[in-house]
């Protein structure tokens, strides 16, 4: 198989965004995933979000591990640099990349196997450092690419597709895990619900710090059957959106909202998200109450979605380490090299 080229047809009538690009400029190569795979819907929501935010695609760096999900960076933002790394270790690549050039937008795409099995350590540590990136877990409860083994997010009692028994080991919930490790932005979406997904993605992109988006993204080939808790059917039935995020671009006039339970959150670039909580008691700024709410609903079998927690004040990794605002890659060699004279002086101590 070689790289499949997607025919690029320019519709002259296509709308352009604030940087003069059409949505086609944000697309990627033709997907080679299974027809109906949830991951493709996520890619399309990502395309939409970057287009709407009018971020120049070549200022985005797309990273991933290994898995069907991790293939998707090929399928969006063709003019962005991408790095399809090794299984489970994308967080470290992203951490280093961000250290070297803080001015790019980082998006990391991962799967539940990639992030919660082999990659759990790196995932948690990247969260803990609050690396400035948008991190997506395309969560389908299975290892898609290796043909359907249970992943660490498979729910107890979830039956395997072909008589492989049911999963007995408790699942890892990326959302609760992220909150436990101090994540500064935690959201959950559903690949089947693009309308609520796009604003979540936009907020996540603009959040400074680690923004986790866990997307239930059904694997039609291995985990969309009856009984599967990661199927389209099950997710549709049990999804409960707790917090809607309405994205308000910086260019739009930001007016005080009249809705009930609406809280505006100002992002680092000045744009806002308006959080509409369904439950008046839900406080998306209080980690502890969010945990309590999530656990309670999880116990009832509900899949809580939305922008569940956000802390815009948490300093990100490079802030914590006082790294200069200039991307390190842009520093001139003269700035970096102390020179011969300094070397001479320095060496006195070693005599």
């Amino acid at each position, binding site marked *: 198989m070689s790289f499949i080229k997607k025919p690029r047809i320019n519709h002259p009538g296509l709308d352009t965004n604030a940087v003069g690009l059409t949505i086609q400029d944000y697309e990627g190569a033709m997907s080679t995933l299974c027809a109906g795979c949830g991951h493709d819907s996520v890619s399309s929501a990502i395309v939409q979000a970057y287009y709407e935010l009018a971020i120049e695609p070549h200022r985005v760096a797309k990273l991933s591990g290994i898995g069907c999900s991790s293939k998707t960076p090929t399928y969006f933002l063709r003019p962005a640099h991408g790095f399809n790394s090794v299984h489970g270790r994308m967080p470290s690549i992203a951490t*280093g990349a961000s250290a070297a*050039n803080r001015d790019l937008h980082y998006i990391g795409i991962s799967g539940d196997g990639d992030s919660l099995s082999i990659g759990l*350590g790196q995932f948690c540590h990247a969260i803990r450092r609050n690396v400035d990136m948008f991190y997506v877990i395309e969560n389908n409860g299975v290892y898609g690419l290796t043909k359907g083994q249970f992943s660490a997010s498979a729910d107890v009692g979830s039956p395997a597709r072909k008589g492989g028994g049911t999963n007995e080991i408790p699942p890892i919930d990326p959302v609760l895990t992220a909150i436990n490790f101090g994540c500064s932005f935690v959201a959950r979406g559903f690949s089947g619900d693009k309308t609520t997904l796009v604003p979540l993605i936009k907020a996540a992109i603009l959040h400074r710090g680690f923004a986790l988006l866990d997307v239930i993204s059904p694997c039609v080939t291995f985990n969309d059957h009856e009984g599967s808790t990661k199927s389209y059917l099950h997710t549709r039935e049990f999804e409960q959106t707790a917090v809607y995020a309405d994205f308000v671009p910086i260019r739009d006039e930001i007016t005080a909202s009249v809705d009930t339970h609406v809280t505006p959150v100002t992002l680092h670039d000045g744009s806002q998200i308006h959080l509409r909580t369904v439950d008046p008691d839900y406080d998306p700024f209080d980690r502890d109450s969010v945990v309590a709410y999530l656990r309670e609903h999880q116990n009832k079998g509900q899949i809580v979605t939305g922008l569940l927690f956000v802390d815009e004040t948490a300093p990100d990794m490079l802030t914590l380490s006082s790294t200069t605002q200039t991307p390190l890659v842009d520093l001139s060699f003269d700035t970096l090299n102390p020179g011969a004279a300094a070397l001479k002086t320095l060496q006195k101590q070693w005599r």
Partner: protein
Amino acid sequence: MATQDRVNDFVIRIATVNGTGSASANSLLMKAIFRMGIPVVGKNYFPSNIQGLPTWYEIRVTKDAYLSRSGHIDIMVAMNAQTYSDDLISVQSGGVFIYDSTRRREELHTRTDVTVLPIPLSELANNAFTGARTRILMRNVTYVGALAALLEIDLDTLKQLLEETFSNKQALIDSNLTAIQIGYNYAREQFNCPLSMRLSRLDKTAGHIMIDGNTAAALGCVYAGATVGSWYPITPSTSLFDAFTDFCKRFRTDTESGTQNYCIIQAEDELAAIGMALGAAWNGARAFTSTSGPGISLMSEFLGLAYFTEIPLVLFDIQRVGPSTGMPTRTQQSDILSAAYASHGDTRHVLLFPSDPAECFELAVTAFDLADRLQTPVIVLSDLDIGMNDWPCPELRWDDTYRPDYGKVYRANELRDLERFQRYLDVDGDGICYRSLPGDHPRGAYLIRGSGHNQAGAYTERSDEYIEVMDRLRRKFDTAATLVPGPIIERTPNADVAIVSLGSCHGAIQETRDRLAEKGLASDYLRIRAFPFCDDVRSFIDSHPRVFVVEQNRDAQLRSLLMTETGIAADRLVPVLYYGGEPLSSVDIIDVILEEIKQGKAA
């Protein structure tokens, strides 16, 4: 070798307990001798433990400026009752044994061939100082004072060193001086000073410094312009990042705002450490990591990725004794094969082999240039002996006209004019392609991947496209052989013996060659500084019927690499192996060579 009447040529070993702060006393002692113009080498033997176990520090005073252990002990300062008896045994005949005789031990006075000098060090220190910690520390300084009398160390030099060390902390200077004086006086009063083994000013250390390899390597990284460093603590590589951090704080921090023109990340493990360095290097920063054996094993998956995706990366492996956890505080050169072929599949990596701290500095800079130029990982194989011991080196020099060689990179302006950018196209026929940097220009965009890819960087599962890339990578490795630092060759007319070696073996080999010369055996010597081997290595070996390959591992790893990569037959490469974990000494080499020669086999 007799130990009598040896001016400026003997070994002092201090036996202590770790955690008792003898390091500063020993360093004071060594530096004082060094400042007297007499070459010295310091070797630290410490346990993998924090406190309470036996530790030794060895200072070789060597008027001939040898760099390695002599293999003998002439003067033992025994401060650790637990090892007294072993320490006494280890002194060579004619030597001197000094011990803390606060509690006198008659059994230590039994060797007739060794001069035993009891000094009640604890008692002296306890009488002069108060406070448990101070007393322990001052006891150490007291033996420095005693040695000053016994060996004729310049008291002024000691004083000046103390003043420099403690700058304006007068109280500390005073107490140290007092301790020195107490020890000095005691020795003068009780013993015949000086000993026949003693010091006498020379002028052989001018323009030199005493430095360890990790500090020097870190300094090299600073001077090469490395901005991102990621690491995970592991002995004996930790001090490299400690030093890098210190230098960056000093040279790269905006004094007003406190912002840092660098980013150092203590990773959660070695897999993350190398991943971070790779991510930064992919983005165009000079980035590096540093580790030791177990870390190399853990980094092996990522090394394969870096090889196949062609990302520049600098990795320091400060080797220690393996396998597995092994002996973390002992030295060895046993990661040669694992580093050369790290990772599954057909992979091979560029290696550099510094032989001393000065070369650590120099090759650190070379490593960054090579990594950028070759777009591949460059592994600098140092070891514990180089990395953590203080070596005398010529002062480090820097040429301000140096500019980094960032290799083949298309920046935005070039990309703009390009018809089509193909990441893995061999434009120049040397196997090295042009890369682009993320964020620079839309036309430079491609998705880098560890899976099969073609010239354009696109995914492929086609044999022909895959083979094309693999063959070019092989060609690139041939190019590497022309770019890496060549061997250092020393030829003697009509040499009887030929030696090939690398890294920290250098000092012991220099000394071996002198000993051989004394026996009328002239020798040729080639010191390998890099893998892949350049042509000179092959032709040197070809020009000798047999060559001794000296290295510090059990499995003759350098020799193996020479055989596979140059095709030279085994019987022409005589292994000389030491793998006990102590820094190499000529005594570990010379007998093997002499024995072979006796059997008429060498040359």
